[in-house]
């Protein structure tokens, strides 16, 4: 039987009736139309469905929607810069050509966001390690790592 779940999605209080076996990824995509959360394996192995749950990067295909009750979810649609334009991470991914097919991109960016929130000045090695749970078949990761390093520098500059 469907259960009522209330959660905060991208800053807005929402409610949804979800079957107990529905994943958070499924609910975000199908009930809220937030297609930026990609499901590429549905087994928690690729990171494409990464969202922020109470600020931490999680694989939303492995989390039941009912378990997100009362929690804060940020998807790629909710990530924006201070002026409402692109977030510095999105900006850096664009400038560094870190997007090719784009299917892993939302998960990559949200993983990077969580990483930089915890460690605003990571080394390149820490970025590579921090992104190691997200698969990309197009870029070979080089430009993604470059973009995260560039965004980190820019975000630190902004916060000063």
């Amino acid at each position: 039987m469907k259960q009522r779940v209330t959660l905060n999605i991208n800053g807005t209080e929402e409610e949804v009736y979800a079957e107990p076996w529905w994943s958070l990824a499924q609910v975000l995509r199908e009930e809220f139309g937030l297609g930026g959360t990609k499901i590429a394996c549905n087994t928690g192995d690729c990171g494409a469905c990464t969202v922020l749950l109470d600020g931490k990067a999680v694989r939303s295909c492995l989390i039941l929607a009912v378990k997100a009750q009362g929690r804060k979810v940020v998807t790629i649609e909710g990530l924006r810069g201070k002026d409402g334009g692109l977030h510095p991470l999105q900006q850096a991914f664009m400038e560094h050509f870190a997007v090719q097919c784009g299917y892993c991109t939302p998960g990559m960016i949200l993983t990077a966001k969580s990483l930089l929130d915890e460690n605003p000045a990571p080394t390149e090695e820490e970025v590579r390690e921090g992104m190691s749970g997200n698969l990309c078949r197009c870029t070979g990761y080089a430009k993604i790592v470059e973009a995260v390093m560039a965004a980190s520098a820019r975000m630190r500059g902004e916060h000063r």
Partner: protein
Amino acid sequence: MSKYSVIGTRLQSIDATEKLTGSAKYTTDISFPNMLYGKILRSPHPHARILNVDTSQAERLAGVKKVVTGKDTIGKKQGVWRRFPDLCDEEILCRDKVRYVGDPVAAVAAIDEDTAMEALSLIKVEYEVLPAVFDPLEAIKEGAPLVHYGVELNINNTRHIEWGDVDEAFRRCDHIREDMFRCSSQAHACMETHGAIASFGYDGKLTVHTGSQSPYYIQVLLAEMLGLREGDVRVIKPPTGGGFGSKFELDSAQFCASLLSMKLCRPVKIVLTREEEFTATKRRTPMYYAVKLGAKKDGTLLAKEVRAITEGGAYTGMGATALYLTGFFSSFPYKYPNYRYDGYRVYTNTAPTSAMRGFGAPQATFVGESQIDMMAEDLGIDPMEIRRKNGMAPGYEVPGEAFIGSCGLHECLDQIEERIKRRGKLPANRGIGVAAYGFISGGIFNWFDTPYAFSAAMVRVNIDGKVDLFTGAADTGQGANTTLSMICAEELGVRLEDIRLHVGDTSICPPDLGSWGSRETLMNGSAVKMAAADAKRQLLEFAAAALKPNIVYDLDIKDRWVHLVDRPEKGMSYFDAVKAAIRGKDGEAIIGRGHYSPHRKGMVSPAFSFGVQAVEVEVDTETGQVSLVKATTAHESGTVINPIGIEGQLEGALAMAAGYGLSEELPIHDGKIQNGCFRDYKLLLAPDIPETEIVEVETYEPEGPFGAKEAGEGLTNPTAGAIANAVYNAVGVRITDLPITPEKVLKALHEKKHKKPSEA
């Protein structure tokens, strides 16, 4: 004024913002009112006769709208080698027998995925299990089970390439090597699995949304398989989450969704699971190689003889092309005066093998570049020197096969050699290996038998100066959309933001064979350039009337400025010229048309890219683990359209090709692929990727737009061979069987250690 205003600048991908914000709508993100969800029932047996399919129970399940089986099709077999009906061998929904674990038997449309899944479990299929054969070396033997009726010894396709007098040349060689190699399979592992939404209406027209490398191929093949006119099938390609060779053949999601939609006149969506993607879509062709190589003492390569047996799996797909290309590229990038190739593609009861980035060339290059190092060592010649001595050069003709126009191989060799020298002496268990490579810029072969030009484009210049570019190119993430828009902007003399690109809709874009075989930059780019030039010529007619230059002056447009070429300060605004021209044409928008098909360019490709890669590895002799330390690639692809885009291609190819060299494979047991998930299929991860250096060697290819040629696929070729050579140089063991796993390295180190005393 500089030569180019758009080309050569590091431009961001024109579709990046949509992808970065989650706004891009891929096939899976699209839904329609009244849409149903489909699932496919697949064979659990590698080889079995279908005696009966009972769908009655499934049909009775609440929420199930339709179940189809092979009996619901018009009974055709499909394939991309349409010139050869025998090679069109795949029914998709099997009617008589199944040939691999994963072969589709039935498909269901239901109100949601859960119901469709449940319905699959209610379909009762009665099979007569048949003896199966999995290894091509077994399948080619007398008495082996036949995968397809009447195909003797399971030989699906043979290819023979020969020039010179090979046997006579071997007699003149001072040294001959004979070696065996084995190349493994590889999964495309696109982040987006195959999927389609088919919408058939009461008007008899079918529209299919599907991520694809060739909407045109899918349109034609669907029409054939469903008994529709091509013009009644419209294929729309949303942004596509990777292709790498996996998405230009008709697949089970596209076909089953369309068939179900036709029965119901409702939209049906089928998206393959990751497990289906790994086990029931096509994959890179595993190959066995026996190679004989003969040389003079001074390192001159006189003769090469290659025999290859490839694992075809259950169907042909594009595998026959891989069989040819692996033979052709086994001669690359060297000037063998005498060469012979015999290739056999053999049917087996395994998942079909077909095109994957490199298309037979990564296998050929691993084998060829390993063996040339072995030969150099035998002869006591430096590996760079033997490559330089025999390497292709501009103007070389591959006898009877191809003409090499531009070629920067020797410059690439120089660049790499200089960088290797700079590395100096390496620590213990470290080694650098080199591999040289080349690749096609689109195939000349037309086995699909299209009557259309290989590429075409249309340019429409509107009153505000905005340019609509229509072309059939298929961007799967590699950046074709950006490259083609840049070519259009450069030729027309406008800025990138003046171009609005219309791609991925067969009903409005001219046909294009699609993005495979590294076609798009040279072939589609040439069509786009021609269309833009046609539009520009029309604009200049009106500009000339307005500017009234002395007749000896040429006019051109650059960065929105129409001007006299020799007196660039004299001119008029592009926008004014557009307004004048449209007014002068009685209000008709300016329309330019372009097309490209290769002519008089041999059998293989109008142009070839070249390069040399050096990979430095460190081998842990305790564990056998090979770590990548550094990869340096000197690459030559004619004029570089978008430098940052090429870097992205190179870095991505390196990761995919290093995965092929080190960790990626699809082990099969009793016909079942054992690692159908990302946990067990080992892609390289961010920390595995070494420091990469890219040296762009510029050449000019007369056949390509602004001198450009292939820039993305050939880069998949060198890495496995370079790694193999590096491992040998690091610890003295030669691995001839991909991938180079820790187990193989350890075993070889062990054998080497225990062999020494007896030899001494």
